[in-house]
């Protein structure tokens, strides 16, 4: 047993972390908001040059053929600085689905481009829950033509291709379409998180390519579980950043002539945050291992990672905001970016209630030996 990052992963973490620290300072976040949450192309290119976008894409498809945990390490660092790039949308959703379900031709055509960062993908949910496998759908597919307006889709504005799920008979059909199709309208939404653009996508009789045959709920659940682990690492990165900001600020800020950090209420609050993060991190590591190993308890492992990461980020972002007091309420402080982001990540791939339900159902099934 060896439950830690490998040396190579530690190096990757440092390398990616340094890149983000250098190229994604908080000033970039402020200008990103001013620019309407456009993603940052230079940052995207730097990351692409590191070669990490293709971490889990096989080498013969233009990727690096590393493990899921390597990609998770990148996500954690991106989450730490709130990097305004379509990493999650293009790689963890788009490439992930094409890799799982696309035909050989589709994989050969798109994955090298996604791995290099040259093209970008986005995923549109069929409705507003952040869940793939729902019966409720605002889009429909008839004779290969897609119509309707999707749920919120992250990074659609920067996407070259869009992946859509549509309920079909007893299962779901995943489809792929180029964003430039004339029957597509991308309508930007005003979101609570100001750093990642979301849109609804309206399709008017758009011919789409199927990504394989229709699939069942089980297949989609596994896809969503994997996705949720990537988000969990983003959340943990964000939570960790909040903890560090709060520590730095409270150690400096005097109140009643001693540092705010010297008050037991501050200490216990941040100890609670630390505990929440470490529990979440431990669950996330296990889930990443379970993905890699294709472990039997994949669903429970991923759900646990998702649930505890959401709790940790929510707590950390709130209490970081609180400890920054009046300063934290000013635009010049950085806490608010995390405070808003924590809400986005809590809901962008299924609410806590959805994951709690999945977790318990999976455990109950195991217990009854189904």
């Amino acid at each position, binding site marked *: 047993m060896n439950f830690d990052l490998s040396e190579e992963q530690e190096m990757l973490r440092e390398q990616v972390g340094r890149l983000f620290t250098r190229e994604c300072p908080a000033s970039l976040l402020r200008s990103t908001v001013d620019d309407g949450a456009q993603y940052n192309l230079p940052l995207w290119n730097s990351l692409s040059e590191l070669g990490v976008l293709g971490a889990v894409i096989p080498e013969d498809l233009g990727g690096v053929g590393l493990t899921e945990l390597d990609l998770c390490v990148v996500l954690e660092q991106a989450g730490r600085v709130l990097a305004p790039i379509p990493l999650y949308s293009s790689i963890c959703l788009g490439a992930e689905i094409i890799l799982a379900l696309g035909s050989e031709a589709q994989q050969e055509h798109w994955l090298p481009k996604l791995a290099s960062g040259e093209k970008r993908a986005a995923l549109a949910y069929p409705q*507003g829950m952040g869940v793939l496998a729902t019966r409720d759908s605002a889009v429909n597919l008839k004779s290969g033509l897609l119509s309707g307006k999707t749920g919120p889709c992250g990074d659609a504005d920067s996407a070259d291709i869009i992946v859509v799920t549509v309920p079909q008979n007893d299962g779901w059909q995943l489809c792929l379409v180029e964003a430039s199709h004339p029957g597509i309208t991308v309508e930007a939404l005003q979101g609570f998180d100001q750093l990642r653009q979301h849109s609804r996508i309206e399709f008017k009789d758009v011919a789409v390519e199927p990504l394989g045959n229709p699939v069942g709920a089980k297949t989609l659940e596994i896809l969503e579980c994997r996705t949720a682990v990537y988000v969990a690492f983003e959340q943990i990165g964000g939570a960790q950043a909040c903890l560090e900001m709060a520590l730095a600020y409270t150690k400096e800020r005097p109140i009643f002539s001693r540092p705010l950090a010297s008050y037991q209420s501050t200490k216990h609050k941040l100890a609670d945050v630390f505990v929440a993060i470490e529990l979440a991190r431990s669950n996330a590591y296990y889930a990443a291992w379970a993905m890699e190993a294709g472990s039997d308890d994949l669903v429970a492992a991923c759900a646990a990672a998702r649930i505890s990461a959401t709790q940790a980020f929510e707590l950390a972002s709130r209490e970081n905001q609180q400890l920054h007091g009046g300063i*934290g309420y000013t635009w010049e402080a950085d806490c608010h970016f995390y405070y808003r982001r924590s809400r986005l990540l809590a809901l962008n791939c*299924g609410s806590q209630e959805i994951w709690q339900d999945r977790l318990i159902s999976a455990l109950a099934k195991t217990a009854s030996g189904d």
Partner: protein
Amino acid sequence: MDFKDSPAEAAFRSESRAWLLDNAPDYCISDDAEITENELVQKALAWQRHKYTAGFAAITWPQEMGGRGGTILEAMVFGEEEAKYKLPMPAFISVGLSMAIPTIRKHGTPEQLDRFARDTLEGNIIWCQLFSEPAAGSDLANLSTRAVKDGDNWIITGQKVWSSWAHHADWGILLARTNPDVPKHKGISFFVLDMRSSGIEVRPIKQISGASDFNETFLTEVVVPDSCRIGAEGEGWACAMTTLMSERLSSGEDDTSHAKQLIELASMVTRDSGEPALESSALRARISDLYVREEGLRHFTSRMRTRLSQGKPLGAEAALAKLVYANNLQEGSALAMDIEEFDGLFLEEPHAHRTRSHSDYIWSTAMRVAGGADEVLKNQLSERVLGMPGEFRMDKNVPFSELKNA
């Protein structure tokens, strides 16, 4: 125990209701009205003036001050009825009526009270508050704005933050340090500041909401006559306590039941099963928790008002109201987003409630900090209500000028 109006209260309620019905609608501002800040200010002052003419501007103030000489319960009754209209009452109204005048009344001279009370009541003065500083928030007594005596005047220099409406204000209430050589609570004096004086620069603070409801106010050698000092030199801390206690009582008055709104929302949102979201017992548990805290707070406030109306002193218990209110606001607005799941994060027609939940989730962070942060309020409750020992203080008997962070 009785929640219903007494006959006298009921009579006063009818009277208020009738008067409001005839008079309030002209002054109301609808939610979607496009109105400039200046128009808002003028409309608020006009409404204040109109209430004054009719004797409703300050129910509990004595008649000789221009008030009605009524009871606290009458003031509550009028407030409840007034709240049914969308009347313009920006913060500067309460800075004047609930902070400035009560402080002047308790600590100032009769002349000072004459100068300001009726004018404030009549809507002739816009007030702002100049207390907090970058290094003096929870630790307000740590303020470093200096007032130096110069003959009959004070020369005041420093930086104040979080003053709303300072850019419109006629007068400000100001705390400044008149003696740095005594421990920090003891060297502070309280002034009223003519905002037209030279040397005052007001800059908006951009908030995380994107708006700029507050200002930084820079004071550079502003000349303030000694006649504008309220209370004795060095009595400023006691004055500030009067001011802030009055504020504490007025906050938390918004008794909107967010929980009830959430029930309505959750009964309209359907889950993938086709059932309303409200069928989920997990959601019911969360809404219940919010409801019992909101209702508990509402009834707690009634208990405190009953106490006040009986002439009993109100202790730090009032801190409870702000503490619970701010945390409920944060929980409730997060829950509103959760109910609608991913969709709940996006402002779209016709979902006006989302605008509210987004801004509440942001504003709650200010509420948890302003006018006593959660942590300060819990200290107060434990020390003043539960009689627990004070925090260890290394700044208590040290002259301000010798403190490390001064």
